[in-house]
């Protein structure tokens, strides 16, 4: 048989090794992408429509819920699930609620296989792209839920119990509402009232006061601002409402719509110049460009910097460090007025929904999924949520009788003050790559690190926006 002269072990080993080399790196990246053929989700039969069951949920059908296990945990959802079982005792044992941080890796195969869960909290770092989900017709329209009577008041539709802007956020250019945001986040300039008191200062309502306060702090060795340089897309949390305040909400709308030269608006330039001045004058904490969100929040909570652009989750996320200073007294400020000719009044702030819930189109028990959402949007569940995770809920209320922590109290007050002057830029949910990677890391981060002037940053961002508009692989939205 085989003589060793032509075919020896070494050759075999070599060939195997060569194949292996090729296989190893490509394998792990590519095999993640194997697809499956489509299966039609067999829907469960409708139940009987009654006053208590307006969505006609099949009372004995199973329910499959997947929750993002992030800063808010999953307890609030489990509590709502218990309520669901109270309403539908026959479903006992068939309601499955699991939580994970890996939404995409867990659920992508199920979407591809045509057997997704009935309700998903599509949140976190592994959030599935909404544009694609909507574009590929993978989601159920939530209009039946919005038009159903609310749990607390049968004469009031669910849609009338929500905070402003929540429903619009779930729409993608049509009448259908695809997403229901459950949490309600207030973005802005977060600071410690206690630390400001030490400087005999209050939150600066004008930019001149802001600069004066930063100068004062600098003399004491405290930086005015810090930000997570590793994720510079935190900067827009205070920068975008600042732009809207200077030039009107219209500027942000044009930016969202990727209109030509939307970024060349003088309001954008004014806002960028103002932030760049913070860097130029040395008011930004040294080293900020290399900090991640937790590190920057720590430096800020330790009192090394006064202000940080952030969202209302910061109270929960940095709870420990904030608690280390009993006089911290967390609060959020709206963008300061740049000049008296600003188009919107002081108090203009960015607030929008968080924790996006979806009901997949191919879900077996989509009515059940919506029913659970309806239960979650009851006063009792909302109150439970607010108490547990100290965040506001998209259900407009539930704060009565609950002692809110200082940051949330301040956020609540900020919303009251803003009234109708709430802006809600959509770039971050419509064009994630554009917002985070290009504008955030590629331009804003570079500008705040002093490696780019505002003019260069604007030019670069405008080009990024134009590229996105011309990119046929990205679905576009208008508002």
């Amino acid at each position, binding site marked *: *048989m*085989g*003589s060793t002269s*032509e075919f020896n072990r070494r050759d075999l080993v070599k060939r195997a*090794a*060569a194949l292996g*080399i*090729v*296989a*190893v*790196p*490509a*394998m*792990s*990246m*590519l*095999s*993640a*992408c*194997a*697809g*499956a053929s*489509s299966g039609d989700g067999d829907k469960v039969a409708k139940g009987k429509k009654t006053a208590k069951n307006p969505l006609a949920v099949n009372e004995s059908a199973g329910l499959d819920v997947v929750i993002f296990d992030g800063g808010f945990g999953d307890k609030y959802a489990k509590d709502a699930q218990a309520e669901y079982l109270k309403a539908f005792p026959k479903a006992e044992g068939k309601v499955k609620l699991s939580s994970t941080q890996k939404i*995409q890796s867990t659920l*992508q195969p199920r979407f*591809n296989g*045509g057997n997704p869960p009935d309700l998903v909290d599509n949140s976190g770092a*592994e959030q*599935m*792209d909404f544009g*694609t*989900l909507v*574009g*590929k017709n*993978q989601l159920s329209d939530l209009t039946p839920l919005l038009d159903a009577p609310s749990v607390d008041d049968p004469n009031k539709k669910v849609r009338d119990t929500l905070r402003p802007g929540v429903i619009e956020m779930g729409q993608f250019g049509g009448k259908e509402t695809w997403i229901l945001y459950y949490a309600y986040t207030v973005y802005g300039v977060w600071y410690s009232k206690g630390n400001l008191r030490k400087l005999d200062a209050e939150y600066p309502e004008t930019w001149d006061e802001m600069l004066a306060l930063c100068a004062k702090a600098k003399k004491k060795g405290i930086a005015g601002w810090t930000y997570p*340089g*590793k*994720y*510079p897309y935190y900067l827009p949390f205070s920068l975008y409402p600042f732009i809207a305040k200077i030039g009107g909400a219209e500027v942000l709308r044009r930016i969202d719509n990727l209109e030509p030269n939307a970024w060349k608006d003088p309001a954008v330039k004014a806002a960028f110049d103002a932030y760049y001045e913070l860097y130029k004058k040395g008011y930004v*904490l*040294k*080293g*900020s*460009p*290399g*900090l*991640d969100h937790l*590190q920057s929040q720590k*430096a800020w909570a330790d009192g090394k910097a006064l202000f940080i652009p952030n969202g209302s989750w910061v109270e929960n996320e940095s709870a420990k460090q904030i608690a280390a200073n009993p006089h911290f007294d967390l609060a959020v400020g709206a963008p300061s007025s740049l000049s008296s000719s600003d188009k919107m009044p002081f108090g203009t702030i960015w607030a929008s929904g968080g924790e996006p819930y979806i009901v997949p189109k191919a879900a077996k028990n989509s009515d059940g999924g919506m029913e659970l959402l309806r239960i979650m949007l009851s006063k009792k569940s909302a109150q439970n949520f607010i108490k547990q995770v100290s965040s506001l809920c998209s259900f407009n209320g539930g704060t009565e009788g609950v002692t809110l922590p200082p940051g949330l109290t301040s956020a609540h007050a900020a919303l009251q003050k803003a009234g109708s002057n709430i802006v809600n830029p959509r770039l971050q949910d419509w064009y*994630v*790559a554009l917002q985070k*990677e290009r504008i955030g*890391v*590629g331009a804003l*981060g*570079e500008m705040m*690190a002093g*490696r780019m002037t505002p003019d260069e940053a604007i030019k670069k961002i405008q080009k990024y926006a134009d590229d996105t508009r011309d990119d046929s*692989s*990205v679905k576009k939205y208008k508002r």
Partner: protein
Amino acid sequence: MQHGKYRFIAGFLVIPLAIYAIFVISPFVQAIYYSFTDWTGLSPDMKMVGFDNYARLFQDDVFWAAVGNSVTLLLLLPVVTLSLGLFFAFMLNVGGRRRKKAVIGGVRGSSAYKILYFFPQVLSVPIVALLFQFAYNPESGALNAFFKAIGLDNVQPDWLGDPGIALWCVMGAMVWANVGFYVVLFSAGMSSIPKDFYEAALLDGANRFNTFFRITLPLLWDTVQTGWIYMGILALDVSAFAFVQIMSVGPGGPDYATEVLPLYVYQKTFRDGQAGYATSIGVSLLIVTLIFSAIVMRLGRRERLEF
């Protein structure tokens, strides 16, 4: 007699070959197929788009930045890691001062060093990456604190936040995490080199430098080559992905300074819902890997020394 030899061998390997075909070959073929579609990765419907994805690659600046960084890693990471590994292993086994009785030996305390070097290997990649991230923290990290302590108050780099050095910072962590393994691997290789060779070399008056280049390295060549391939894979694959994903600004930044191919594949698939395009990037990663392995195989071809 020669005829049917492969068939005969394959007969014994039916099961493993089938498994290989199903789990390795078929994903390859599928992936290449998907690279010609507009698949989103989030729904099963897709259509063929021909070479559109590949045409797009040529226009994509981010893709070329990723290629550049991946190739940089591929060229430098093995050289740096293996050189350090060889140097340390040599010092631990051969490079010590001559002592009585033993012909060769390591520097003093070499066994303790060996454990020390291997230590990073028992830590998982994310932990190493996180530790380095803390060290690189410009505001309160160990490195800048050290610079301050020795009076270099003005040298306070942003480390991962500076596009000029970010990739080097990531590479530093990768070298640190991997060098220990090669110290141990090369130590094992060196211990199988007969002592008489060294004795003869010493009698001829060879110094450490000569001993290393004329005896140790040639006899260790096979091991080095294996290590080279392995490091190359690491530079292109998951390890680079993990380090960049955890450590870098963005990740992939600042300004795409640390964007690498596997990360870009991940971002396009999972963040942007463009799995079809991502697989075409994956295929280009495959091509880079093929070229790399072909070059290494060719360069590494030498007569095996039997001893």
